[in-house]
């Protein structure tokens, strides 16, 4: 019992390493690249889901926090003349530092803007996202509009999916704790939550900061996978892409976000057979999906809620319930 958690963690790390080894030695580089990009998308979608899906606050500036993580970590690994930062572990440390900066940026942006609601919040977060991008556009040290080349390509399938696993675990446990319940209650009814003693503004900002932290992780991984970043990688389109992932997958569902990330990243690749028509077909699929399932593919539920119950998973302390699934 005592060693179960570390054991499961160790097994997961081993499984990810083994899977990465198998994929990278058997599949061609293009497919591996798509899979890794999916992994980065999973992290982005799961993190935005905490704000847009769980807390019910519509944020449109996720790419900005991804940019903070990407630029700060890349600046450490390319501009700091210390060999440690070029090593695999050093890059990992740089990614965490970059993500921490992104989290702090999220906290600072969230503090004033989360007092707004709905459309106004969307516009303000959009604005902050653009401001962050334009700040990097104007910093010569990181290449300005020319971008920052020569970033050590240290992230690969293994590191990206270790982070996917960590993000899933941390956000999943957070949501299924009292802290997560409180975040959900804000989505359900702010006035009632406040009346039940919930410091609504505080938890909105906390959710926003945590979400920004993981956006920063995704940014750092992205930078060290591509080996090159420029401000355009983090423009408004990127933010919208992540919102689409969350909405398609189902607001408030972690596994839904993963599904959404998979669809938005992999579907355009699968549609390459249609060549120039694919960018017409892709939005059409999105429109149909929203018409058929307006609450997203999974709605508020996780994949295992929709499967016939399988023993252990249902013994979680706060279980979501079958009865409500049928409704």
């Amino acid at each position, binding site marked *: 019992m005592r060693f179960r958690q570390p054991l499961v963690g160790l097994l997961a790390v081993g499984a990810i390493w083994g899977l990465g080894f198998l994929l990278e030695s058997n599949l061609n580089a293009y497919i591996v690249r798509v899979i890794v990009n999916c992994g980065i998308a999973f992290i982005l979608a799961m993190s935005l889901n905490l704000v847009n899906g769980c807390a019910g606050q519509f944020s449109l500036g996720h790419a900005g926090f991804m940019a903070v993580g990407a630029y700060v970590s890349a600046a450490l690994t390319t501009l700091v003349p210390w060999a440690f930062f070029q090593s695999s572990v050093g890059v990992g440390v740089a990614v965490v530092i970059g993500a921490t900066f992104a989290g702090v940026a999220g906290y600072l942006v969230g503090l004033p803007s989360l007092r707004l609601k709905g459309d106004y919040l969307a516009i303000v977060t959009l604005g902050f996202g653009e401001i962050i991008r334009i700040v990097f556009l104007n910093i010569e040290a990181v290449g300005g509009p020319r971008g920052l080349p020569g970033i050590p390509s240290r992230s690969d399938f293994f590191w990206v999916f270790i982070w996917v696993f960590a993000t899933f675990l941390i956000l999943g446990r957070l949501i299924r704790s009292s802290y997560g319940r409180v975040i959900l209650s804000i989505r359900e009814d702010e006035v009632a939550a406040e009346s039940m003693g919930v410091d609504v503004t505080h938890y909105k900002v906390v959710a926003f900061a945590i979400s920004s932290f993981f956006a920063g992780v995704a940014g750092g991984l992205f930078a060290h996978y591509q080996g090159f970043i420029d401000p355009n990688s983090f423009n408004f389109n990127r933010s919208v892409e992540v919102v689409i992932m969350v909405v398609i997958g189902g607001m408030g569902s972690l596994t839904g976000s993963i599904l959404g990330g998979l669809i938005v990243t992999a579907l355009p690749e699968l549609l390459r057979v249609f060549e120039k028509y694919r960018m017409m077909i892709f939005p059409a699929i999105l429109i149909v999906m929203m018409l058929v399932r307006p609450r997203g593919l999974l709605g508020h539920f996780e994949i295992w809620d929709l499967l016939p119950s399988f023993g252990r998973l249902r013994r979680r302390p706060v279980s979501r319930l079958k009865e*409500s699934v049928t409704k």
Partner: protein
Amino acid sequence: MSAADAFVADGLSLSFGGLKAVSGFSLRLGAGELKGLIGPNGAGKTTVFNLITGVYAPDAGTMAIGGDSLLGLVPHDITRRGIARTFQNIRLFRDLTVLENVLISFHMRIGYGYVSALMRLPSFYRVERENRDKAMALLALMGIEDRASTAARNLCYGDQRRLEIVRALATDPKVLLLDEPAAGLNSSEKVQLMKTVAEIRSRFKVAILLIDHDMKLIMGICERITVLDHGEIIAEGAPRQIQEDPKVVEAYLGVS
């Protein structure tokens, strides 16, 4: 103010632009007292609740719980000091389960931190189990414990009203404000509600301020009644006195 007073409000006033919604509202609630607040539509009853719970800040006046001033506090702080409420138009966390609805009220005294939640330390499981048991006991009091795992929106109307009361009780209040708890209930449900309110009061030693339009309910269980009209208190006293008060009759029926 005597030490026995759980809650005291003195001269609370609030205007919306030119409209005086509440003026000079004073109220004393003894510990464990059950008081009714009645008045015609638009008299300012719910506004009084919103003032007491910090949704609106009063233009003038003071209010205190157990001698501590509540002025300038935001709603969640006021809840922490021991004032809980229900809503006239039910405001449950609709997509959460009945149990989760109650658990949210325990959060302000949650006994574990982020680290414990993320690492799933023993304290997490212990607190979750304790809170779950406490929540189930409260639900059982209202007879809705068998609905614990249903989404709140799927409850029938009467159960939704009951859940609102349970959720407010779960914050462990000294003063409980019930805003039309009997609205929309049928007569047998109302009788049951009266019993429950009386039981809550004796078991939890909580002072209750009750708004309702149902005179039978109010007259039946409240020891004292305050009558509001146009934002001002027009009468205060025992049910019998209130029924005979000419000003109250006038406010409700008009002058002949």
